[in-house]
């Protein structure tokens, strides 16, 4: 397939502090003891997309990610790692690596996706319609990641605000309108010309943009060149393309331009009649873009298509601490086909080298990494414990993530919390909805709720 894939892996996302650090950029955050990036790579590999460019913000992060990639999958995939400056935005990142892009179409995937939606389907839709851009949409998760990030895991009860407002044509093929819920203060205003051309538009607030896009390379580069102010793909480039789809200011492919240039204007009338008779006879209905194009002089259109993923598919973006907790819980729980591990009869994974003390129970939907030791009379429920962790006796871990090399003293109780690698909890610490930064030491006997522990 003549597709180049760009993975936008980000850098040290501020939403995820304190989970990310100099050592662990966002792309390498562990989900069920594997970096989140590996899920994206697996997904692409399974769709036979092997020519990848991973874009990382910041040189340091790029080195770390590059290191991991070369150790993990250099033999299977052809991966290039490109570093861009920090805080340039997604559009900025693409602008910076524009010279690497050579294929006719570009598939852009966010590096923080854990999903089983086939990106190949997006590529196919894109090709079929010869679209300028194709967007993958998926159902808005019901209790899914809330944007608030925040420190606590309490906002699960909050109803997710409608993130994206999306307008589709009646056949659900084209994207006619897109806006971010937060941007619209009061009203949704839709362009009349697009609605009139399409006749019907379905406005959906139960779909969300999955940050998997297929762009025509020429279109993407044109827009990036013409609009230097655009920073974000989702917030600038995509809405721009959707808005101007009936008054295209960008050149599509060269030969396309020639075709249109000759076709339009001269035999406008004829075209119109042909199209009309086509409509009347109901034979191979042309898309409204074509109808519109033929109706007027010197107007060009481009198509913005959508691929709507099946509702049963799993999709989460790891862009907040809450999402991190959710992803870890789901990958070893409801969506365990994603993890790539085989689960035991108890629906959990305990590495053979892990040591369990007497009367210690590891419940279903748990994971215990290689070489970890758990003391006596412990209880682990719905949690992920990394490699080489040392957990004392009488410890209770529920709904939590404990990363590699963490040390947890006797009598601790941990609920809904994240303990980063090399962190240490001394005896009898009680944590609820807390995050502990890598290498941090929590003093013995303390009790905390909804706090973040990080060195200043």
């Amino acid at each position, binding site marked *: 397939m003549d597709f180049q894939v760009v993975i936008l892996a980000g850098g040290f996302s501020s939403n995820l502090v304190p989970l990310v650090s100099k050592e662990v950029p966002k792309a390498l955050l562990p989900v069920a003891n594997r970096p989140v990036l590996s899920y994206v790579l697996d997904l692409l590999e399974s769709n036979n997309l092997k020519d990848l460019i991973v874009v990382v913000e910041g040189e340091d992060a790029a080195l770390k990610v590059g290191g991991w990639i070369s150790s993990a999958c250099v033999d299977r995939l052809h991966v290039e790692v490109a570093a861009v400056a920090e805080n340039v935005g997604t559009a900025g990142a693409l602008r910076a690596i524009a010279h690497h892009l050579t294929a006719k179409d570009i598939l852009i995937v966010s590096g923080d996706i854990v999903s089983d939606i086939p990106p190949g389907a997006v590529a196919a839709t894109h090709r079929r319609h010869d679209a300028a851009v194709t967007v993958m949409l998926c159902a808005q998760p019901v209790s899914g990641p809330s944007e608030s990030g925040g420190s606590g895991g309490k906002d699960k009860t909050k109803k997710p605000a*409608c993130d994206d*407002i999306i*307008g589709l044509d*009646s056949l659900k093929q084209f994207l006619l309108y897109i806006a971010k*819920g937060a*941007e*619209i*203060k*009061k*009203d*949704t*205003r*839709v*362009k*009349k*010309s697009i*609605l*009139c051309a*399409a*006749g*019907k*538009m*379905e*406005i*959906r*607030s*139960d779909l969300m943009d999955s940050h998997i896009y297929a762009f025509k390379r020429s279109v993407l580069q044109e827009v990036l060149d013409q*609009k230097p*102010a*655009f*920073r974000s793909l989702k*917030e*600038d480039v995509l*809405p*721009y393309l959707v*808005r*101007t789809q009936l*008054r295209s200011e960008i050149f599509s492919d060269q030969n396309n331009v020639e075709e249109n240039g000759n076709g339009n204007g001269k035999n406008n009338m004829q075209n119109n009649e042909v199209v009309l008779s086509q409509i009347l006879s109901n034979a191979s209905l042309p898309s409204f873009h074509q109808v519109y194009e033929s109706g*007027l*002089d010197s107007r060009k259109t481009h198509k913005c298509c959508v691929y709507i993923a099946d509702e049963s598919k799993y999709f989460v973006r790891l862009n907040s601490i809450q999402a991190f907790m959710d992803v870890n819980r789901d990958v070893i729980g409801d969506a365990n086909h994603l993890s790539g591990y085989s689960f035991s009869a108890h629906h959990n994974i305990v590495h053979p080298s892990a040591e369990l003390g007497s009367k210690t129970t590891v419940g279903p939907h748990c994971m215990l990494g290689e070489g970890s030791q758990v003391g006596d009379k412990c209880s682990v429920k719905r949690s992920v414990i990394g490699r080489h962790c040392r957990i004392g006796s009488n410890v209770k871990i529920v709904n939590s993530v404990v990363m590699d090399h963490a040390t947890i003293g006797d009598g601790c109780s941990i609920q809904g919390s994240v303990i980063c690698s090399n962190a240490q909890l001394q005896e009898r610490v009680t944590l609820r909805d807390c995050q502990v930064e890598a290498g941090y030491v929590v003093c013995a006997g303390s009790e905390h709720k909804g706090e973040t522990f990080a060195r200043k």
Partner: protein
Amino acid sequence: MASRKKRTAKISEEEQSRRQRFHFQAILLADNFTTKLLPLTLERPNVFLPLVNVPMIDYTLAWLESAGIEEVFVFCSTQVIDYLNNSGWYSHKDFTVKTIESPHESTSAGDALRYIYEQQIETSQIQDDFVLVSGGIVSNMPLTQLIQEHRDRKKKDDKAIMTMVIKQSLVTDHELFIGVNPLTKQLLYYDEDKICLDTSLMDRNPSVLLCSDMQDCYIDICSLEVLSLFVDNFDYQQLRCDFVEGVLADDIMGYKIFTHEISSCYAARIENFRSYDMVSKDIIQRRTFPYVPDMKFSGNRPLKLGRQGSYRASDAIRSPSVHVGDSSVIGHATTIGSGAKILNSVIGNGCSIGSNVVIQGSYIWNNVTVEDGCEIRNAVVCDAVKVSAGAILQAGVVLSFKVVVGRDFVVPAYSKVSLLQQPMEEDSDEEHLLSSVDLQMESKLGPDGAGYIWQVCDEEWKHSVAPIPKDKLAEIIDDDDTEDESVVIPSGNANSINNDVNDLYDFEIEVDGTFLRAVEENIVADLAVLEINSLRLSYNMESAHCAGAIFYSMMKLAADTPHSSAIDLYKNAASIITRWKGLLGFYVKQSDKQIEVISRLEEMCQESAQELGPLFAHIIRFMYEEENDILQEVAILRWADEKAGADESDKVYLKQCEPFITWLKETSDDEDD
């Protein structure tokens, strides 16, 4: 055996009572509440205008009868009652026509429905859900099943008070945007102008189907609540822009409107000349079957269907050289001279068309005389008009009753001609107009012509019989695009800011108006606070904006009050502030709002440097003083701090206040000590 008999008897009794209860009733608003068909409707109610030689009301009544309606209440003027008395409509079996004479003061559908409600209280003649149709509807859709559906829905959900019939429209130039829930078909949005969805609507409905290609048929199945809603909201005038939009906007009562899309049957409403043209064509092309010219469905005399879809009365006289094209209708006792060409046109009864006349896409009503060599394109020509030899009617012309067009006169495109003068905006009293008709007075239609050419608005082409010219069509779209231009600014932020600024500006104008009214009527400050609060909510403004806007209005009032010197102005300002400190004080309780007020004053001073400028410090001081206590020293000091870092040019007023501020600082230090 006996018991079974009894039971069947009982059932049939029940059936009987049920049938009694579920009588299918309709209300036909036959009065004319639209001005789109002027000047014709000045002389004849719109339901009488002939549509392919049959009055519109006959189409509507014939449809209602065949659609299963048993009783129809026609709300109409005396003219219509007279007509109905003479027609055969009263003698139909199983179809009762009752008239409700419209009182003179009713000028809208809302008034009509309120009047019907008043009658309803006395007679309760409308028993259950009814069909509400406006005059000028041509349709052949069945209704009983739809009414039943409506009743069933109403039983489940007693908030579902109306079902609206919509239909896919073939034309694209009309503007109606409706939003429907794709699953339940509930109407969520209705607007004839713009598309602007409320976010709360999106929150409640995960999916909204917006349509621009739907046509509203103005056929509604209504529950009795609709009548009472019109009474409760006595300002509702029109069915659509007041009632429907009002119901949609009101979430307190939670009434719901549902839509029903028809696909296989026909329904359309005549509201302007364009729809008149379209419906006429549909009738000729038999889309409205069985209401077509060769069928007898009312008092009409059927015509004979000839070749190529043209209809001709058997007694029409025409010379052999006449060319009658496709889809034309020629009425009874009409004579057509040699060499005439009739294309896509309707010609009524008793007309006489001269030789070598070209009539294309036009509607010629009864007893019209068209002399030799005339050319009529896309025009409507009413009864007893005389078009003298050689005259030309350009596209979109409407000639009202008895107009005479002079020899070789060219009637310009889109003009409307009537023997009556155009009513002025102020006095539209018809009788006065009738008396002032003077045929001899400056006739603009040639030397031997009679009639006044009315002023028409520039947008006439939108509603005219003539097809929309190509360039206009392009214009519509261009208009849209230029309007959108602002939206295309990168990242879209600029646009929203723009909107905010506009909103703010509008808001300030509103506040200013409210404040002036309060001053004029000498309202208590508390009431003014209420009014401004409601403005604030409707514009979604913060109270800081209120404070700024009110203060601005106050100062403007002070500056507008006549004054001879700066001292006078200061006195004006002081008295206004004292009078309205309750109002202003309500909004400036926090120091940030007070700072807003100070910056506002500064802005105004900069704008009118001569007048207000020198008074800046005085006004600040006045507002600070004990008895007013509008500004607190915290706010003033904070303002001074903020300003300290500004450019020199910005500091003019800070300097003016310097003595006052130092004094403030000293006193506060004293207090601290």
